[in-house]
């Protein structure tokens, strides 16, 4: 681990190392038929606790992410605690954000030494409302929200800007959609697990020019959970901890009109602070990018300087399953899971929040030095995964 990053503070610059030791997610579906949030979440939380052998008494910290606007009920997250088993009383926190930011809070808690283990979970049950309309409420309440521009409008403006700038074309965007959903064939939890070839996708009419149906994520109900652990505890709880080498999040201006919608400087800065571009560090073999709309993947690839050596979204990404408020946490979980399973040595995960990629979080996860020593098959698997995802 390098400690000579700018300021060093954003990376795990202290003496503590923190790792993802377990990840689980629900089946992602259009409508989790008749399940309450707690009922949807419970099997996922159970899965990570059972896999690590932890119970709530041994958890140092519990942190969740969700949005009351999806459920349409204030304090809806308190009910989800039923799924945790909060007795004896747990040290608990909640962010009204994607679970990736709950994971960030838990990571900081572990870095400070206040806890050795943490359960992080999040869920999004979008089927209760009209998601594109609900998302208008995340916008500037003075100049934007009174016009009710929905998430499709927001994405269309950004996609057009990218097309106009000549940074991408409709063929490449259809390729992103097809590659993502075909990759999800290997992800039994995903919602959309196959795609017609790009040429066929491009024959479709526009849904909202310049967007076609394939440029949009599905509307999804789903949940995810991660267990974090520090140092030796992490080594006790799993064979190949996915060490978080650095994590950072950065935010851009509120007003879309002052931003360059074709770029993501906040992602680039967060990645730099997370150590992604450290001198001498190898390119990540895997990237899990939170890009619900096809054009956003193009922006993020450029911001993160990803090249041919990196498999992007082998899980299918948010284009294959998009449980809002969990889709970012799932990116970290999927990246870490590949390290846990020995198919990745160095992965980058990204989560986004707000309109036009306004707020971005980047985490770098790595296998132990030992796991990347010659003779292990991690590299071969990664190469194979790369091949399959093409």
């Amino acid at each position, binding site marked *: 681990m390098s400690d000579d990053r700018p300021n060093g503070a954003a990376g795990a610059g202290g003496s503590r190392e923190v790792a993802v030791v377990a990840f689980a997610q629900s089946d992602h579906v259009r409508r989790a*038929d*008749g*399940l*309450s*949030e*707690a*009922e949807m979440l*419970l*099997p996922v*939380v*159970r899965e990570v*606790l059972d896999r690590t052998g932890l119970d709530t008494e041994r958890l140092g910290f519990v942190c969740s992410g969700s949005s009351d*606007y999806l*459920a*349409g*009920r204030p304090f809806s997250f308190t*009910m989800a605690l*039923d*799924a*945790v*088993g*909060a*007795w004896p009383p747990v040290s608990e926190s909640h962010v009204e954000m994607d679970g990736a930011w709950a994971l960030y809070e838990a990571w900081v808690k572990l870095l400070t030494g206040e806890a050795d283990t943490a359960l992080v979970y999040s869920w999004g049950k979008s*089927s*209760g*409302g*009209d998601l*594109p*309309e*609900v998302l208008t*409420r995340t916008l500037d*309440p*003075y*100049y*934007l*929200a*009174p*016009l*009710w*521009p929905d998430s*499709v*409008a927001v*994405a*269309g*403006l950004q996609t*057009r*800007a990218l097309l*106009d700038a000549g940074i991408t074309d409709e063929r490449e965007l259809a390729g992103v959609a097809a590659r993502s959903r075909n990759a999800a064939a290997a992800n039994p939890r995903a919602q959309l697990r196959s795609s017609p070839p790009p040429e066929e996708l491009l024959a479709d009419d*526009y849904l*909202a*020019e*310049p*967007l076609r149906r394939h440029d949009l994520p599905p509307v999804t109900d789903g949940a995810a959970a991660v267990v974090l652990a520090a140092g030796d505890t992490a080594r006790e709880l799993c064979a190949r901890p996915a060490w978080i080498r650095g994590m950072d999040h950065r935010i851009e*201006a*509120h*007003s*879309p*009109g*002052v931003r360059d*919608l074709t770029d993501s400087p906040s992602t680039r800065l967060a990645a730099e602070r997370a150590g992604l571009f450290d001198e001498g560090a190898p390119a990540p073999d895997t990237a899990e990018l939170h890009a619900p709309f096809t054009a956003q993947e193009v922006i993020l690839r450029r911001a993160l300087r990803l090249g041919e050596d990196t498999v992007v979204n082998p899980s299918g990404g948010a284009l294959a399953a998009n449980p809002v408020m969990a889709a970012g946490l799932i990116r970290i979980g999927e990246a870490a899971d590949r390290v846990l399973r020995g198919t990745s040595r160095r992965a980058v995960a990204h989560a986004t929040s707000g309109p036009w990629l306004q707020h971005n979080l980047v985490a770098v996860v790595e296998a132990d030095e030992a796991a990347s020593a010659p003779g292990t098959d991690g590299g071969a698997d990664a190469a194979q995964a790369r091949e399959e995802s093409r």
Partner: protein
Amino acid sequence: MTTGASATGALSAPLVVEFPFTRSLGPVQSAFLTGLRERTVLGVTAADGRTLVPPVEYDPVTAQELRTLVEVEPTGTVTTWTWNPAPRRGQPLARPFAWVLVRLDGADSALLHALDAPGGPASVRTGMRVRIRWAAERHGAITDIACFEPLDAGPADEDPPTAQPRPHDGEFADPVTGITAPARLDYTYTPGRAQSRFLAALRDRRTLGERCPACRKVYVPPRGACPTCGVATDEQVELGPAGTVTTFCVVNIKAKGLDIEVPYVYGHIALDGAGLALHGRIAGIPYDEVRMGLRVEPVWTEDSRYPDHYRPTGEPDADYESYKELL
């Protein structure tokens, strides 16, 4: 949309959330929105000299307070756009339109709004010249701009004007200091499988609890999980119908719209077999004779989906030992 049950028997019902959000304005926002009411478009000069429209209170780069106002033109250039074939409730136009970012002449940043384009998406392009169409009635809100409309300027398209922003003191008579933004979202509420089973049983005047497989506690109303153990409760247990008053209070204040004479008694009632108490009104006994340990049973009224109140069964009072864990 009506209340209904799915194939799994889970219930659902419409839920509407509606608020008129009232927000106060900073001095820059106040000048901008008051200006719109007066058909004047104001921007603010940023720390780097750019003219920002719509204007903001704080610099997007340095975060310093911005106060230097300027006036820009009601005409501008589309910097990006997307088609909206099916407008939603609350959006600026009822017929298909383009969402646009427009850089007004004299401004260096763009404003998001709608473009009325009767010619359809084929008539819209980045770089096209547009002008503000003012709303007939204006109150000091972003919706005082009804939308943009194409500016028939011919070759001016290729030759955007070089308008300079003009100084403006931001002073108007009767400035707006706040906005009221109504917001409505429509949901379908689903209480989940366990609560659906509970509600379905109530229809038959039965009270169903669910038992935790780990600690054996019976929850009522059940929510599908034992909040202590964090495991699913899936064994249904029929409770009561009688129960024991574990604690109670005498209500002396008449609630608005409630057709019950005060004083009345509201209590916690542990139904026989339940691991925790539910609450309900206790009647059929003088209010000052209600006591802990009193044995009660539910009283249902015609068509009701839950007990109207509980009344004494006439049994001897329960021993304190039998319900002390349920207090």
